[in-house]
């Protein structure tokens, strides 16, 4: 039971549907109009019903002005970390610092292999992710002396020129559920990005998982608060009386405030392709949640 004290932010999780191609772009614009802080897209490149997530993100970046943009989460096995580092830094420069980097170790290995990607065991994938983050941060670190050398088992870089430097320190959020990934998150990530629907016991699972992240962070000499806790959500606005995220915007705000205060969640990302829902989330749920958390924290 920890509140890490982070400022709250609110985002959307928009389906990067391929047809019609402008539909997710419109939903990103709707997210910005709703006052949300972030728009994010899942990344399943083997799925032809979806657009390429990075292309869509870059396109959306040019159409928006204020909102942050993230993969949720990018499929590392099909995206070379060196290219990803340069792409993310490029987009961050183009947007004046509006990029978050959400990455995952990979799921759906059949799809990855079908696209010509390397099939890894879960353990290998965790290590590959750790090496990838090293490559990515190393390429961003243009103030470090000399070219980058990473001698990994899965990703090696021999004397690459660093850069480009991102416009701000791009946070790396990791999608993690299992102990090894949670420990990796605690050691190296700036944020933890699970989906509520995948938590075995719902919000109650957060305690034990937070604990693993906190322990790994401490063991690596980091403050647990260095890892912000984010959460993908889905729900439905109703006239009230339902369960978790099945009520009025007021009900939602109370439930999210509870997640913030009890479990330290500070980034709430709603999966929705409905502009009206995004609008309620941004304009009603977000301010009320902030108020509730604020008053509780100062109490």
């Amino acid at each position, binding site marked *: 039971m920890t509140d890490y004290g982070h400022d709250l932010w609110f985002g959307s999780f928009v389906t990067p549907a391929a047809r019609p*191609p402008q539909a997710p772009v419109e939903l990103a614009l709707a997210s910005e109009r709703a006052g949300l802080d972030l728009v994010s897209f899942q990344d399943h490149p083997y799925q*032809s019903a979806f657009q*390429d997530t990075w*292309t869509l993100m870059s396109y959306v970046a*040019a159409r928006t002005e204020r909102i942050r943009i993230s993969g949720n989460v990018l499929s590392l096995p099909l995206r070379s970390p060196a290219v990803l580092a340069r792409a993310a830094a490029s*987009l961050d420069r183009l947007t004046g610092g509006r990029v978050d980097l959400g990455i995952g170790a990979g799921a759906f290995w059949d799809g990855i*292999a079908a696209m010509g990607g390397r099939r890894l065991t879960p353990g290998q994938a965790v290590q590959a992710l750790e090496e990838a983050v090293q490559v990515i941060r190393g390429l961003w670190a243009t103030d470090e002396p000399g070219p980058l050398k990473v001698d990994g088992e899965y990703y090696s870089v021999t004397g690459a020129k660093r850069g480009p430097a991102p416009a701000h320190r791009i946070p790396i959020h990791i999608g993690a559920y299992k102990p090894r990934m949670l420990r990796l998150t605690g050691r190296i990530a700036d944020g933890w990005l699970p989906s509520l629907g995948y938590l075995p016991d719902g919000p109650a699972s957060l305690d034990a998982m937070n604990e693993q992240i906190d322990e790994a962070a401490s063991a690596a000499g980091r403050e647990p608060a260095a890892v912000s806790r984010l959460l993908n959500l889905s729900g439905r606005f109703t006239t009230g009386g339902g369960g978790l995220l099945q009520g009025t915007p007021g009900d939602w705000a109370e439930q999210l405030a509870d997640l913030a205060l009890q479990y330290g969640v500070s980034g709430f990302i709603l999966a929705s392709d409905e502009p009206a829902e995004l609008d309620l989330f941004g304009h009603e749920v977000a301010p009320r949640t902030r108020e509730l958390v604020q008053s509780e924290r100062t109490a």
Partner: protein
Amino acid sequence: MNYGHRLRFGLRLSTDADHEPDHLIKSAALAERWGLDLLVVPAGTAGADLEPGTVSSWIAAATGSLGLVVESPPTPHPAMLARAVASLDQLTAGRVELALHAEAADSGEALGDTIAVVRELWNVLDRGLGRYTGRLHRLSGAQKAAPAHDVPIAVHADSHVLRLVGRQADEWSTGDVTALAEGNRVVDEAARAAGRDPREIRRRITIRGDVGERAGTFTGTTEDWVSDLLPLVLDHGVGTVVLDTDSEDLAARFANDVAPALRAAVDAALPHGWSSTRVRRAAALARRRPGIDYEGTPEGMAEVVEPGDLAYARLRSGYLRGGAPGIVLRATTAEQVAQALAYARRHPGVPLSRRSAGHGVSGRSTNDGGIVIDVSLMNTIEVLDEKTRRVRIGPGARWAEVAAALEPYGWALSSGDYGGVGVGGLATAGGIGYLSREHGLTIDHLRAVEMVLADGSIVRASDVENADLFWAVRGAGANFGIVTAFEFEADEVGPVAFAQLTQDASDVERYLVEWGRVVEQSPRDLTSFVILPPSRAGRPAVALSHTMVHAADRETVLARLEPLAAISPMYAQDVAISSYAAVMNNASDDAPVSRGEPVSRSGLLRHVTPEFAAASARVLRSGAIGWFQLRAVGGAVADVPADATAYAHRDANFSLVVMGGDDEVVDAAWELLRPFLDGLYLSFESSLRPERLAEAFPPATLSRLRRLKSTYDPEGVFDDNFALTPATNDPGGSDQ
């Protein structure tokens, strides 16, 4: 040597990170304003260079017409490159090209694999999953996704992979003017060895230069530039000229002075029409079908689509029928239709289909190995006279678009139940829609047509001009020509209520009889359609009715719906006050990907009798069919005399359609229903059996149609759908 490529001019962007984002957008905006064809986003790999895919997408979102060449360094994931480029091409409606950079160390293997993987993932002409096994890259069952257009793949290389360029690329790009002659020789030779025409491959040169005093190549006045560039075009076949510069002044000079001057000089030096031939890839030519004169297609068609063209994947099939035509001729004017028809008539024995747009049940708008004349681009909707509500509509419009265009005037035209249906097919057959009981069939609103007849003449038909033809078009139009414009008188239609009810139909006979009774007894402002899904074990039998009430006040709507709701217990209901346009806005824009043949039977009936209901119940239980729908007709439909239009079964109150998977199975079930049916509606009938014709048209109508057919289409050019051709037997026995 010139390869006949229309000249294109482009700028190469500087993307090192020192440049502010505004600089990139400004360069792109200028290039677009100057009318340049291309902006090349370079694949810098040095630390400070921005990543080209990201920059391209960013610029794409800020421009509207500029072509973008995404350069890619060698990639470990060519399938991802294919996805990214296809996505951006979709987002930009086809403005993207791909250029691959050869690595010095690559003998061509990596590059060759990359091109093969990208092409395979984009190849939606061959169905199924993408597979490729190369030395370095592979695909093992990846889902394919096509770009919006046939994205050309260029290779930038100076020497070592030129043979590969000849074998696999669409454009060779070099920065070395002196390499052109020898490079072209190698590329051309490799192309020919691979069975390709060297003209398939564009040649691109990227130059640097300066204005002012003449001081070497590409430095001097506009005239100097033109004299430097002209031999590259005339002697070395350069088709794309890209300027690499940081200077806005130089770029402006290049775009505004050099490009037009060079175009003029090239046009003056080469014979007229030097760049008018489209050269398809050898791989595309290999997909051509026998018996079609591909070289002799009429000039000036809006688009000619062959089986090897990417657009073919979207155009080959209909909504329910898979097709594999040999050629699709897309027309945008009546004259083009006439030309396409003349072309088709030079192909006796080759199937001819005509396609308006959208969705049709019988799917006669495609064929196997034949010619399709497609008028889907003729989709304008124009109000001719507000006072008389006269509107002119192209055959390629879809009814959702028509409804949306008429709504602001407070008008509507009753069409069908689906907005994705095209105007042409429906408005030449009948049109049984949600307003039919109040407003009649769609054809009852038709006041005039313009059409192309079998002999290629373009005529107008109305009550006062070619009145017999106008009579025939309203119900049997497909036999008489290709309508290129319809003039309708729209109805004033205000807000409507639309009710979607899911009701218990465990006593299906009772439900049907009651539904029929309620519909017949309802005022004409109610029109109801009902679908009975075939019964499935473990699921309750339900009836799904869709009912439109042309009223917006709650009392009237409830009064009309109450008797329907009272038929049986309700599982779900959705009643909304809406507009006709909103109800019609129910169609997907996706291209059909149908395969196989639809099996559909149509019948008209006077009343839903208990006997008919019992037969229906048997059919629904039999598992023989997958679709059973009844639509209300009657009302205003029956106000029109039977001999007023070729659609003659005016006394029917209901139209029935069933669909299934197998002709014989469906026909066996249909035999149970047939005794209760009188007439059929052509649009819902997929069988081409001659006796169907006598069901579609009563004897007097059929004999009049046959007389007209012998006048207007004596050779049976338009015989693909319920042929009236005099030579066939007259199953009605009533001719003359």
